[in-house]
């Protein structure tokens, strides 16, 4: 995956941090102090889709070759998360119980072209 820099145009991972204090949620979420949400942005021209490293897997590469050969190739591809990890939260629920939970697939670790 590629991280976005200044002036990035191609598909990359843009870091985005949500500070729970800033949105007034620090009174019910004990840990962590924020959420590294991140997101994918950038262009996915057809020649990029299927390049190992940007593509998610061998299967993606094969599918892209098939798509490129068909009329559907004109649709293009999207810059989407290819790797995610869970977010662990320690928070007060509605009954003021302290709850620890791991929410899967919440943090975008890398992006690629479909």
């Amino acid at each position, binding site marked *: 995956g590629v991280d976005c820099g200044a002036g990035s145009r191609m598909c990359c991972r843009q870091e*985005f941090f*949500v500070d729970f204090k800033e*949105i007034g*949620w620090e*009174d*019910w979420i*004990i*840990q962590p102090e924020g*959420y590294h*949400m991140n*997101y*994918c*942005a*950038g262009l*996915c021209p057809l020649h990029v889709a299927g390049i190992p490293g940007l593509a998610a897997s061998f299967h993606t590469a094969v599918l892209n070759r098939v798509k490129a050969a068909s009329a559907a190739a004109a*649709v*293009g591809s*999207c*810059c*989407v998360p290819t790797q995610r990890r869970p*977010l662990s*939260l*320690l*928070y*007060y*629920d*509605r009954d*003021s119980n*302290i709850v620890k*939970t791991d*929410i899967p697939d*919440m943090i975008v670790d890398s992006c690629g072209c479909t």
Partner: protein
Amino acid sequence: AAQGWPCPACGVAALSPGAQRDALLALAKQNILAKLRLPARPSAPRPPARGALLTALRRMRAQRSAAFPGMLRSPLPFTPPLLVLRAGSSTSHSARLHFRFSQEVAGSTEILRATLYLWWAAPGRGARPVTVRLLQPGPAGPDVTVASETRLEAQSSGWTTLDVGAAVRSLFGQDAPRLTVELEVPEGWGSPLPSNHSDSHWPFVVARARARKSHRLHRR
């Protein structure tokens, strides 16, 4: 997609920076609440009823009296949450644990006794030397100073205790009371933390505390 963009990410990129940030914050909030199956954020937590707290403490005492004789002999007048444990940086043979005490409790509570409980798995090849360091934040910046260092020999599986009362008491005058414990074993002995990461074997601190009494002046 509603605006006719072919990809989900394209729509975000087309917004102005301010609107983009607002949209992402709204999305983050909506995402967290949906995953927690909450219709809205919970209201500010209220402390549990004293009766419920005492019942819970009595149950805990009954369950633990076999494992920790002498622990929790009487109900403790503390207000939860007293502390939160968080694993910090670690290497293959060392680990740092952060015990964060809530500031409100630290300001109104006097610590009588505090004990750190550590679980050791069976070493299998004689006594396992473990160094436990209590680290405190320095006067400025992220630096830490070693408040104390203790060397323990783990002979067999089980809980080991360490008195951390003085260290915890000294923290309570600080803005952000946090005790950092560093565990280190010689290289090649594996991680000092339980490898199965079972909740029941994680390190913890038991603190005996009482509410600070306010000094009253009487005028005649």
